[in-house]
């Protein structure tokens, strides 16, 4: 996006659609077919932890086109979706392969428009967080104490300023930067567990998942396991996203690989390092997609292909939380 382009039109913040408390479980294939359409704005969130990789792969398998992907840390799964031709625009605050290297396809798209241009809207992490906060709260903008003096507002006209109606520290009018809301057509997040109605529990890094789900018009939650209502209700503070904000629950063990799920499996750091090499060579990257995404029917096949050895290398031991007492009326 250039400095002379008009800002992206800000969609009217529609209220969330009425949702039923029914059983919302479905397959990944069905969820992507139902909720991700060509041209949609799709938020995929999970900060290093619980990255919804399997959902990204299913979007590739179903051949979606022209997507606007919103993701704070555009990493491997975004590079894969770019290489598969799904993405026309990226909204992000970090475009790199963690600390393990580069994203080959993303760099080719941005540096050389190879094989085609990519519209890129750049923010800082807090800017992205504030866009989700505004979206989740149906606010016209969200203020933050960043961006003054940065070159980012010159290349991203969505970054604007507001004058505070209260006097500043020196008694004079005070200006503050603001960002516009983001309201994705669909947000997809990965989590450890949910009940069939979508009450979703997450521990370890919780990132921006709650805000991304509440900002969205529809939301898909992918979980390591489906649990009984009683498990969720034994610890209601652990519920990051209540059922009323969720449209689909997809059970997909190891769906975050090569990312991790705290307490379930660890991060596949070797694959992160390998990706810098795979993605550097377009042919090798396409071969990887052919083998691991187009060449698998679903994520269960992908996981099977990882093999027992690799899965066991990522196994974790036990470190249980000390239970708390919610109390019971006597």
């Amino acid at each position, binding site marked *: 996006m250039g400095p002379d382009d008009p800002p992206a039109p800000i969609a009217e*913040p*529609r*209220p*969330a659609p*009425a*949702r*039923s*408390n*029914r059983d919302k479980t479905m397959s990944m294939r069905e969820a992507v077919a139902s909720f991700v359409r060509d041209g949609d704005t799709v938020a995929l969130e999970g900060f290093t932890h619980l990255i919804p990789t399997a959902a990204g792969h299913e979007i590739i398998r179903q051949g979606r086109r022209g997507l606007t992907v919103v993701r704070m840390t555009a990493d491997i799964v975004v590079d894969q979706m770019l290489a598969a031709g799904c993405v026309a625009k990226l909204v992000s605050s970090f475009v790199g392969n963690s600390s393990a290297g580069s994203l080959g396809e993303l760099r080719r798209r941005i540096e050389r428009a190879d094989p085609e241009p990519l519209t890129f809207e750049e923010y800082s992490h807090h800017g992205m967080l504030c866009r989700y*906060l505004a979206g*989740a*709260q*149906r*606010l016209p903008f969200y203020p933050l104490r960043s961006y003054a003096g940065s070159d980012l507002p010159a290349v991203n006209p969505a970054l604007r300023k507001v004058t505070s109606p209260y006097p500043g520290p020196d008694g004079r009018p005070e200006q503050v930067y603001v960002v516009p809301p983001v309201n994705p057509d669909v947000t997809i997040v990965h989590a450890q567990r949910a*009940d069939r*109605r979508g*009450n979703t529990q997450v521990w370890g890094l919780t990132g921006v998942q*709650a*805000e991304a789900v*509440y900002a969205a018009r529809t939301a898909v939650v992918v979980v390591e396991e489906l649990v009984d*209502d009683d498990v*969720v*209700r034994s610890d*209601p*503070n652990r*519920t990051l*996203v*209540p*059922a*009323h*904000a969720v449209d689909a629950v997809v059970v997909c063990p190891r769906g975050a690989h090569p990312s991790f799920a705290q307490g379930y499996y660890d991060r596949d750091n070797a694959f992160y390092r390998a990706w810098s090499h795979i993605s550097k060579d377009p042919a090798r990257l396409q071969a990887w997609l052919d083998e691991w995404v187009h060449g698998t029917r679903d994520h269960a096949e992908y996981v099977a292909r990882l093999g027992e050895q690799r899965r066991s290398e990522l196994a974790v031991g036990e470190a249980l939380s000390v239970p708390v007492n*919610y*109390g*019971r*009326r006597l």
Partner: protein
Amino acid sequence: MTSSELLAAVAARELAGRHTVFAGIGLPTLAASLAHLTVAPDLEIVYESGVCGAHPSHLPETIADSVLITGAEAVLPMASLFGYVLQGGHIDVGFLGAAQIDKWGNLNSSAIGDWHRPDVRLPGSGGALEVMANAREVFVVMRRHTPRSFTEQLDFCTSPGPDRALAEGVRPLGAGVTRVITDLGVLARAGAGEELQLAAVHPGVTVDEVRAATGWDLKAADRVGTVEPPTAAELRLLREHIDPHRVYLR
């Protein structure tokens, strides 16, 4: 049958097919619980304290009763509850009470008399102002229908309906008050630009009695219905399952 039983049963029926209700304690809790067992099996009951999907073991005495927490589906920080759930537009119906209501469904819960030196200082908004601005619809339950509470002119407007907001250039998310359920009958309006009209009376109550009990010139619908009294099944659920100790069914 008590007046509370009547009001709870009527309010419950109005929740048919709704998914999320923002309930206060007392009659709204009884109505939401009865609806959950009858016409709205999917109903998720949300409290401003942060509780979503409460499954209380006992009838709650406050919106923060410990029995609402234990076994709930989610407990959110209040900033999330007001910011994401309510302002985000996830509430179908909010229940409110008030000391005064006018024909447009504006509410006063702050003060009787002059705000600066009131005759009676009332509790204030709590979350009422936000429920009015953000729920799709608001139901008001008033135990006593009198000209002092159904007034032509509020002493103070705490929670404005959409007409007052529009006059300031703001279109709120919801329709404001769409139902007022009282000991005399049911008033209704569809949304902005409409006055509350008498939609139905309880058995034995006349239209003129309701108009006399209302502080403004109350219009009546073309055909004012008669409220169907609670069924035996509704009464049994209320008395035996929902409030067996008669905390609110007084």
